């Protein structure tokens, strides 16, 4: 789960990670009051969407008067912001964050993420702040300093020193940086974050560190113990079909092709997409019905797949283990009773109770069902069906 910048900064504040004064608003008419409350004579108005690259897309503006604050707030709220992360359709902005201006001496980068190969969280720092860190990693990997942190020892002084010396900080700055980094580690570890990123981390004219931006993502598996974070979930940022699917225990990701797929198991679902592509088709979605698939979840799966008007044929690929194929077969029949399925359905059922399932399908009066014997056969048949031949 991801959250907005202003929410990440609320969490930062709780752990004494310094942030600029700021306020989130949803109506442009509140902009001037917010700016007055923040104080000063220069403000930044920032669009709150989950995607990065907001500045380049016109979603971040520097305001030099209260009038400008209001002007930019009204321009940004309601705009459709397109960045390299939103996709071509862009994202409707509903909230802006107004922040006091900061006297910037230097822009740095500081982040924390799980290193899967090392099996530990790592904190990363770089002198190359304010630019895309992926670019720095690819072009100048020596400019990124990394320290692994064992959760059993926690964040120690040497972690901070390694990073600080790597950033060429002065003696006074090192002390301040150490406090900052330690607080950031708390933000990461105590909230089961999967990512914390500050880009840029600003060194101010008076040698203080302050988080100018803030990005946070969380380990979905740990959300059960962070009710406060779960409340920060913004459903506007998620695909409605994916939300609906998850409510029924289905894992769904929409893609651009025309062959719908319904599969049990994430690995088999991905492989099914792959083989459709190999046979010359394009998958319309990833859909894992999970290990507890019942007739009604299968019916729901059909409903979600068919909401996508591009879908020209559906492949049901089930290898029954715990999931019994006869239940899936009944689900297919139930679905075709409740939802009008006009596209051809290629069905491949193997494993537990496959024989019974094939009988159930065979006895039905459905005319748009095509049986397949194995994975390869199923893929060829569904691609053909989607092409209408």
């Amino acid at each position, binding site marked *: 789960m991801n959250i907005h910048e202003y929410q990440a900064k609320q969490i930062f504040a709780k752990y004494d990670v310094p942030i600029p004064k700021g306020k989130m608003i949803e109506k442009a008419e509140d902009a001037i009051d917010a700016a007055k409350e923040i104080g000063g004579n220069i403000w930044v108005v920032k669009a709150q969407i989950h995607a990065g690259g907001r500045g380049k897309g016109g979603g971040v503006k520097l305001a030099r008067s209260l009038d400008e604050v209001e002007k930019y707030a009204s321009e940004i709220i309601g705009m459709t912001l397109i960045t390299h992360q939103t996709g071509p359709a862009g994202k409707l902005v509903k909230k802006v964050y107004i922040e006091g201006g900061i006297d910037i001496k230097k822009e740095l980068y500081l982040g924390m993420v799980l290193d899967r190969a090392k099996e530990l969280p790592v904190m990363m720092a770089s002198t190359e702040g304010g630019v895309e860190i992926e670019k720095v990693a690819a072009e100048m990997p020596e400019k990124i300093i990394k320290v692994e942190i064992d959760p059993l020892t926690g964040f120690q002084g040497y972690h901070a020193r390694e990073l600080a010396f790597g950033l060429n900080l002065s003696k006074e700055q090192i002390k301040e940086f150490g406090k900052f980094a330690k607080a950031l580690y708390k933000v990461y570890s105590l909230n089961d974050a999967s990512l914390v990123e500050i880009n840029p981390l600003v060194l101010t004219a008076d040698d203080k560190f302050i988080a100018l931006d803030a990005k946070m993502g969380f380990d979905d598996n740990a959300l059960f113990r962070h009710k406060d974070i779960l409340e920060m979930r913004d459903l506007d940022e998620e695909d409605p079909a994916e939300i609906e699917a998850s409510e029924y225990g289905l894992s769904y990701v929409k893609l651009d092709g025309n062959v719908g797929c319904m599969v049990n*198991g994430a690995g088999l*679902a991905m492989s099914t997409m792959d083989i459709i592509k190999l046979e010359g088709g394009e998958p319309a979605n990833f859909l894992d019905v999970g290990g507890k698939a019942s007739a009604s979840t299968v019916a729901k799966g059909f409903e979600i797949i068919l909401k996508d008007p591009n879908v020209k044929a559906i492949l049901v690929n089930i290898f029954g283990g715990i999931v019994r194929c006869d239940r899936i077969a009944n689900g297919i029949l139930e679905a075709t009773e409740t939802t009008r399925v006009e596209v051809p359905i290629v069905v491949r059922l193997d494993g537990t109770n496959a024989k019974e399932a094939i009988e159930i399908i065979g006895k039905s009066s459905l005319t748009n069902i095509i049986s397949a014997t194995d994975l390869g056969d199923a893929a060829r048949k569904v691609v053909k069906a989607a092409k209408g031949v």
Partner: protein
Amino acid sequence: MSILVNKTSRVIVQGFTGKEGTFHAEQCIAYGTNVVGGVTPGKGGQTHLGRPVFNTVKEAVKATETDTSLILVPPAFAADAIMEAAAAGIKVIVCITEGIPTRDVIIAKKFTDKQGATLIGPNCPGIITADEAKVGIMPGFVFKKGKVGLISKSGTLTYEMANQVVLADLGISTAIGIGGDPIIGTTIIDLLKLFEKDKETEAIVIIGEIGGDMEIQAAEYIKENITKPVVAFIAGRTAPKGKRMGHAGAIIAGSKGTAQEKMDALTKAGVTVVDSPADIGVKVREILNK
């Protein structure tokens, strides 16, 4: 021979009396697994499925000399269960549970390593040594005895692939589902080492997927250390970047962890990489019959 589990393994089930625990323990027993008991805190002293129930793993070890544990407890308690098993001296710990917080897995894994135990999973189908022992949730009937060792990050895809290997008249020695989470107990390399030494295994199948770089590390290891033929498939060539494909670990971050990158590394290491998930069975037969 075979690896990790066989008919002499003395297996307990943690979460024994729960719905999942009961169902899968029954299935394991039906397969012929030597299930010697189970653990459910607060239900010690009872008998379940004809086997004793204990309050703690320590008591189970004392009474049954168990060496293998199958964990089927809810995610909030699973890391605790893993560490309890390791502390009690269990050597092979198979954790099926899906949805354990990553931070908990990191800590549990460090502890199992320290105790010298092998942790399989979490979020995996478990281990099966064909016709000997099933310590997991896979459909046993698919896995017919044979000479192919199987290592997989996935669940149902493992059954699909094992089925293909069986239909190609080769059969399975041991199959292990290592799990699809970002951090897992036993890696592909750990199992390659065991299969290389196992006399019963003549060829190894690796079923990887997008995310992380475990397959790339395995490729480097295979090049230097594995003499048996290896056939691999990587799921997720068509997966979009930045989208989690079901498994918590199956996500392409930036340009890293793509299927193509892994396929290239494995091919370079001399592994036969199949493009189509439907070709695993035929390919292994082709190589073994050469």
